[in-house]
């Protein structure tokens, strides 16, 4: 087994790190890499987090398709959609969501592109993003970092950014990090997006070029590489069929 982590594997470890201080919360993850990140965290640094099957059940552990003789994880709870809204209102949840647009204060849009009255592209709708960002920690995952996604201002604020949250006095607002296929970002004291680390092998200038608002990459550290045990879990236990490389190519 090589110890050279792929970009996808580095992203999975960065997603797993979002749960380091989470405690006993429901991990909600949208996308292949964030899902693998939550499952990796469950097996390593954050054993108390609660996983779902993506439908109506809470699972005692992650599905392990790489272990042919492993039994399926036990159902430890029932969480149909109605209970999800109850759980998030208590704050015992943490989400990693995607974004069609994301601005310099972490305002996220998944609703539409263009004008409200007559959008050029209708997307999925705000879904649960306003409620998630008003109630518990939210991180974002962007599989194809580009200036079309990282924009100066979003067309419809779905997930609430730091500037809007301060104006609205949102007591439980907590944006964590943004993990992309190029870098990891967090927020400065003014609530603006700043680089936390750039993935190994990624040219810092390419991060600047792919971000539609000003970003300072000077002196950015490298994103940590997953260790040998994490790589073994990702490759042999959690994702033996390599679905991660379909979301972030090797």
């Amino acid at each position, binding site marked *: 087994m090589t110890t050279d982590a792929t970009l996808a594997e580095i992203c999975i470890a960065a997603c797993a790190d979002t749960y380091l201080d989470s405690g006993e919360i429901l991990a909600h993850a949208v996308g292949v890499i964030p899902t693998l990140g939550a499952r990796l965290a469950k097996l390593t640094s954050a054993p108390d987090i609660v996983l779902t099957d993506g439908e109506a059940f809470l699972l005692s552990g992650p599905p392990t398709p790489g272990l042919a003789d492993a039994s399926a994880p036990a159902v430890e709870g029932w969480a149909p959609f109605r209970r999800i809204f109850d759980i998030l209102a208590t704050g015992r949840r943490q989400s990693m969501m995607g974004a069609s647009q994301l601005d310099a204060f972490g305002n996220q849009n998944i609703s539409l592109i263009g004008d409200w009255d007559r959008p050029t592209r209708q997307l999925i*709708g705000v879904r649960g993003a306003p*409620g998630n960002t*008003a109630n518990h920690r939210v991180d974002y995952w962007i599989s194809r970092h580009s200036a079309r996604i990282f924009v100066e201002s979003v067309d419809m604020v779905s997930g*609430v950014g730091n500037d809007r949250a301060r104006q609205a006095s949102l007591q439980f607002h907590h944006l964590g990090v943004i993990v992309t296929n190029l870098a990891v970002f967090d927020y400065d004291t003014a609530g603006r997006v700043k680089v936390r680390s750039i993935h190994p092998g990624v040219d810092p200038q390419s991060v600047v070029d792919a971000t539609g608002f000003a970003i300072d990459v000077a002196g950015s550290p490298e994103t940590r590489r997953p260790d040998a045990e994490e790589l073994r879990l990702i490759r042999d236990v959690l994702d033996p069929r390599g679905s991660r490389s379909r979301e972030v190519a090797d």
Partner: protein
Amino acid sequence: MSDKRSSIEEAVASLESGMTIGIGGWGSRRKPMALVREMLRRDDLTDLTVVAFGGPDVGLLAAAGRIRRLVYGFVSLDSIPLDPLFTRAREQGLLEIEEYDEGMFVTGLRAAAARLDFLPIRAGLGSDVLPANPHLRTVRSPYSDAEYVAMPALPLDVALVHMNRADQSGNAQFLGPDPYFDDLFAMAAQRTIVSAEQVVPTEDLLSEGSFHTLLFSRMYVSTVVEAPRGAHFTTCEPDYGRDEAFQRHYATSAKDPDAWQLFDRTFLQTDEAGYHRAVAQFHAPEGDA
């Protein structure tokens, strides 16, 4: 207990233009598609306000020009993220839109069910859901300085839901993993039409699921329609899963006007039995037709 069974034609004949109609299910899951298909056959039924976690129900009714106003948390086909019929209608500016956060939407149903004007909720504050819905107000807590969204009630004239089982008087049962919000739709409505995979004797309701699966009572139900495979092509677990091949055919056809005409002629310009025959034909191996 009265026998509320009705034919699908009679049940849908009771709907009127201009009504506010709630449709249960979630995305492309346990949608009362047989009732929706019958609504499409009623050419005179227009000007509707539809309230839903939308799936192909919303796409089909929007494309047929039946919806004046759409109140929704999202519209999705689940395994296919967007419904092309809905997105096109929306992008052409054909619909009045109230788009809510999912939790706000549920809170609106809860308020209506409790016969309240509104219920407070934190979701929505700071987001563009408020400016996009200028009728929304916030409310100051009488106990602190906190401010919440005053989510207005979403009262319904009629709710349409599809269940796994019901008895003839309208006691309704779900057997799948998720009840969605069908009981809330029923409680928020003046009357509810339940379509069910099977109408069974009351004493048989517990033969397939525990008492926890009895989702809501006949108190809320005015009409019961037996509609086997009535959620097709959406899910109706555990009776059947989503017909993914057919859903792909729906979504692909919806993107092309000529293909859509053919889809419409084949699957919609017919009665419910004709629809299911055409679906069987669609799945028949080549040369077998």
